[in-house]
């Protein structure tokens, strides 16, 4: 079935991210001056205000920072309720939003903050592979 959920419009400053996603890589912006990874992508380092930025391939691993279970949605997402939205603390630093997979949305009390998660990509169209995160098989490390 064709992907029926919102597909983000791609800005021109984020091409490396979307190119990487096509190849199954989680590309992250990093500052060459202060060496910190930031998310979302910037034109200037939000920590030290250097404009000497680069893209690195991230590990695609992180921890669950917080979540919610969506019971009301629109468009393609309405067919998926309930589903779990989440914020992921990346191992490289800073935080990414996602829909979390590998959890039971009807048992939110069993979802553990801090649990290990891994990225995966789903193809939405020819140019867009969207990152989703899943609770790691070997959770707890």
């Amino acid at each position, binding site marked *: 079935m064709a992907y029926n959920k919102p597909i983000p*419009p791609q*800005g021109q400053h984020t091409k490396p991210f979307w190119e990487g996603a096509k190849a199954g890589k989680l590309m992250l912006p990093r500052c060459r001056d202060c060496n910190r990874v930031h998310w979302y992508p910037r*034109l200037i*380092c939000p920590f030290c205000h250097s404009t000497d930025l680069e893209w690195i391939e991230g590990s695609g691993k992180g921890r669950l920072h*917080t979540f*919610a279970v969506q019971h009301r949605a629109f468009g393609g997402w309405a067919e998926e309720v309930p589903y779990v*939205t989440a914020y992921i603390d990346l191992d490289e630093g800073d935080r990414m939003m*996602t829909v979390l997979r590998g959890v039971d949305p009807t048992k939110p009390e069993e979802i553990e903050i801090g649990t290990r998660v891994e990225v995966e990509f789903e193809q*939405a169209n020819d140019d867009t592979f*969207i990152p989703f995160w899943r609770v790691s098989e070997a959770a707890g490390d």
Partner: protein
Amino acid sequence: MGAPNLSNAAAIVGAAESDVIGYPEDLTGHKVTSLQHHIQAIKNVSVQTGIPIADIQGIFSAGWSGELAEHLGLRPRYLDTTSVGGCSFQIHVHHALAAIHAGIIDIALVSHGEAGWSYRGGGGGGGGRGQVSPGAEMTAAYGTFGAPSQYAHAMVRHFHRFGTTQEDFAHIAVVTRDWAQLNPRGVMFGKTQSPFGGPITVQDVLDARLIAWPLTLYHCCLVSDHGGAVIVARPEIARSLSTNPVWVTGAGESMGHQNILEMEDFTATSASRSSATAYKMAGLGPADMEMAMIYDSFTITAGITAEMLGLAPRGEGYTLWKNGDAAPGGRLPINTNGGGLSFNHSGMYGMQLLVEAYRQLSRTAEDGVNGIEGKQTQATTCVVNGTGGTLSTTGTLVLTSDDR
């Protein structure tokens, strides 16, 4: 008293432009976006003046101030995003002059970025101009719609950090509903306005349908219509009128983020900073506040904000409602109009807060129309805090009554 003399109260200390203007393409052959023009010009004026970007305290732009502050990782204490066409930037300088003269900030940034040619065809006056907010781009895919879908994440983090529960926050909805029973104009005043009106119990809140776990319907504000206005005048005028003045004793503002993706601590808002500024100006502290009007878009908003305002210890904001302090007749009345939860919430609820704070401190809270017996408090001080965006921007006022 005449108008204060702002002459020479501030100076423009630098001016720069983006790297390539006119008909630019960037190094990869792409058009340059409005956001790029902004960021390049800001970087260049920082280099020119030697003033680090981190030292900027106030951001003035035609509609971009929140986006720019977040992109730069700044937490400004003065935000002005006045957008009234081409003269906006002269007006920004005027506003910055006033803010500096008032002692609120020392360093103001006025910024403009507009890819008017590269993205022509959209008409004048701004528009997208090549801009896709990178924060929005990286969150658009994930099926969050409207405020509750996002605020729920904050409540879950509060549970995790402080051991709080849905039931703890449900007390906020129950007590606020009790206040609405004293306000005939409240949407949830009795059954007259709504079949769902009248008092509710904690169990009602827990049993209501889920919107975004852990938020049930009764953890969420109303969606209703509202119009409101206030007039602010200088003391001589205030004294000459027949109405009771309510004094703006303290004021402060701040922001933590624009996109909740950038919220550093999901259990804390910039109200800690905006209220610190307001309390300092007022020479008063949280312990001096005798009532509070707190933005309650959701129970979690009110609970967290009570903590940020210093009215309760961290993690314990909800106890003000649970133990009855915030209730009618309580030690610290909160949201005496019935709140966004049960009185009225039109989307931007800050005006409703202001109107009720005025009514309480001007002793007009029981006029029979906007309040019946039991609604008027004896408070002589009130902290008013508005929250905008997604737990993003905050403004705090410390208001005091004329009979204080």
